[in-house]
């Protein structure tokens, strides 16, 4: 079954790379939506059905942590798996994201295999 995915990152380069990596990781992709920050991501969620979210943390306007808070506080969206992808590699930042309900955490730089491995436990 195809999976509709939302990729949230202020870098268009990373959004493009993640699309490619998801294909390499053989994720059964449906529609792929992109957002440049947390605000754009929440707008996208209002208008589309999404089955998986990848999000950066450091972004302008609304960062990934605040976006995660908003998603997990919303009854319609809180069950959507969210995987954080960031250069923020400190244990404290990982724990913060996990405690807010993130389903996975991938540190940049990343490989297709790391994404695939992370998704194995999230999507069936």
């Amino acid at each position: 079954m195809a999976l509709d995915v939302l990729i949230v990152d202020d870098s268009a380069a990373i959004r493009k790379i993640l699309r490619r990596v998801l294909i390499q990781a053989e994720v059964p992709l449906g529609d792929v939506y992109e957002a440049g920050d947390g605000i754009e991501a929440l707008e996208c969620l209002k208008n589309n059905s999404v089955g998986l979210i990848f999000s950066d943390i450091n972004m302008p306007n609304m960062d990934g942590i605040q976006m995660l808070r908003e998603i997990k506080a919303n009854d319609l969206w809180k069950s959507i798996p969210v995987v954080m992808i960031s250069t923020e590699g400190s244990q404290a930042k990982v724990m913060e994201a996990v405690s807010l309900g993130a389903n996975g955490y991938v540190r940049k730089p990343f490989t297709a295999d790391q994404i695939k491995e992370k998704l194995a436990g999230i999507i069936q």
Partner: protein
Amino acid sequence: MTSSTITIQEMQELLIHSVKKSTANVFSTMLGLDVEAGIAITNSGSQGPTDGVLSLIGLTGPWMGTGSISCSPQIACKISSALLLTEFGAVDEEVLDAIGEITNMVIGNVKTMLEEKVGSMGLSIPTVIFGRNFLTKCGGSNGWTVVPFQFDSETLLVQVCLIQNDAGKQGTVGRLHRSGTDHE
């Protein structure tokens, strides 16, 4: 080791080690390229004049300052082509975005390594400049730790300047070094 116990010399060595490790990791993982670090130096004062692409990212916390990557337009295009699997012949918005993201990853991983020694730090969003004959100076600091990397017979520079947030205790990284002092 905490921020209060780390010396300027230790920070200098930590920066060089972190920049080398982080840059090699990012280029290998994201670009499939091996880069070789040259001899690191500490430059005092302003940098330049410089031509080409310069990407800057701010660091905050117990030590604060700026990290940067600078290279020629040709190298910027080659890095972007390798990252995005698209051929770039000239610097455009996509190339600037790609170099900004590479800077984010390289300096972001340096930050993570520094945090093990000095505590939590913050990272800004990168700013990328493409132009000719510009000078750069890190405000409030005298020194840049400069690590050159050979890339296709050209040089890419990864630079960091940091000052301890409580400046009254230990001063800046660069103050103990003369301009052009070699390391390793």
